[in-house]
C-alpha cells in the first residue's frame, strides 16, 4: 500500500527488529535491577541509559562502580568499550543521512545491533529505514526496560535461565553471515580478527580485544573488487 519505489516495506524490518527489542528490553530490565540491587539509587541507571545508551559499557561501568573500582576506572572502562562506536559511526555515516538533526540524533542511536541490522539490508533505502526503525525502537525499549528493572529491583530472576545471553551473539551471527558468505576477503579478515580478539581476551582489559580484531583487515587484500555498489 505504501509507494514501494520510495519507501521500502517496513513490516519485515519491524518484525525482525522486534526480536532484538524484546531481548534488549529484558537485558535492560536486568541492568536496572542489578544497579539498584547493588545499592545505586533508581535515577542512576535510568539517567545513565538515556545519556550513555550503550549496554555493555553501562554494565561494565556499574560493575566497576559496585566492585569499588571508583568513578574514574568506571568511566575509563566504559569509554574503552565504546571506542568501537567511532568505527561504526563511520561505517553508517551515509546511512544516517545528511540533515543536521538526523546526524546529531542518529549518532546517539549507533549501537552494535542497529549497525549490524542496517548493514545487513540489501539496498540504501532499506539500510536507512532499518537504521532508524531499529535505532529508535531499541532506544525506547532499552530505556523502558531499565526503568522497569530499576523500579522492580531484585524481583527478577537470573536472565541466563532463559538463554538470553546466547540471543545477542545469535543476532549478530544472523546479521553478518550474508556478508561473510558472499565476500571471501571480508570472511578471512573477520575470522583472523575474531581469532586475535579471542586470543587476547584473557589478558586484555574489556573493550580492547574487539579493537585488536581490526588487525584482521591486514589480510583484506588490495585488489578487492566489490560487487554491490
Amino acid at each position, binding site marked *: 500500500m505504501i509507494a514501494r519505489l520510495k519507501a521500502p516495506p517496513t513490516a519485515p524490518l519491524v518484525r525482525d527488529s522486534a526480536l532484538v527489542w524484546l531481548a534488549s528490553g529484558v537485558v535492560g530490565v536486568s541492568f536496572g535491577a542489578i544497579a539498584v540491587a547493588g545499592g545505586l539509587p533508581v535515577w542512576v541507571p535510568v539517567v545513565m541509559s538515556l545519556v550513555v545508551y550503550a549496554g555493555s559499557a553501562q554494565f561494565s561501568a556499574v560493575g566497576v562502580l559496585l566492585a569499588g573500582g571508583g568513578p574514574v576506572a568506571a568511566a575509563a572502562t566504559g569509554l574503552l568499550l565504546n571506542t568501537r562506536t567511532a568505527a*561504526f559511526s563511520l561505517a553508517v555515516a551515509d546511512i544516517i543521512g545528511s540533515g543536521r538533526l538526523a546526524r546529531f540524533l542518529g549518532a546517539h542511536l549507533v549501537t552494535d545491533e542497529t549497525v549490524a541490522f542496517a548493514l545487513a539490508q540489501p539496498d540504501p533505502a532499506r539500510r536507512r529505514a532499518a537504521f532508524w526503525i531499529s535505532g529508535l525502537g531499541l532506544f525506547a525499549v532499552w530505556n523502558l526496560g531499565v526503568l522497569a528493572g530499576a523500579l522492580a529491583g531484585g524481583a527478577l530472576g537470573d536472565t541466563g535461565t532463559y538463554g538470553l545471553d546466547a540471543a545477542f551473539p545469535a543476532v549478530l551471527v544472523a546479521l553478518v553471515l550474508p556478508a561473510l558468505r558472499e565476500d571471501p576477503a571480508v570472511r578471512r579478515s573477520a575470522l583472523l580478527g575474531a581469532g586475535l580478539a579471542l586470543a587476547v581476551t584473557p589478558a586484555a582489559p574489556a573493550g580492547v580485544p574487539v579493537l585488536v*580484531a581490526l588487525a584482521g583487515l591486514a589480510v583484506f587484500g588490495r585488489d578487492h573488487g566489490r560487487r554491490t555498489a
Partner: protein
Amino acid sequence: MSATVAMMLALAVGTYAFRLVGPVLHGRVQLPARVQELLSAGAVVLLVALLATGALTEGGGFAGWARPAGVLVAGVLAWRRAPFPVVVLGAAGVTAVLRAAGVA
C-alpha cells in the same frame, strides 16, 4: 554521589563524541572508495569479533558450554537461511534447555 554524576557525564560525552565521528566527517571529507570499503569490512570484522567474544567468553574467561552451543545452533540455522526469529529464538532455546539440563 557527585562523583557518580561526573562519571556518567564523562562516559556520556565521550561516547557521544565517538558516535559523532562518522556523521560529522560525512560530506566534509571525501573518503576514497578504498577507505569506504575498508570501513564497511571493518564494521563486519568488529561485529564478528563481538559475537565470537560474546559467545565464548565472560569476564575474561570461558563462558561455559551452554551459550556457545546455542550460538552454534544459530550459525547452522542462519547458514541454512532460516528466518531471523528462528535463528535468535533457536539460540536462546538451546542454551536455556542445556542450562535446565544442568550444562553450565
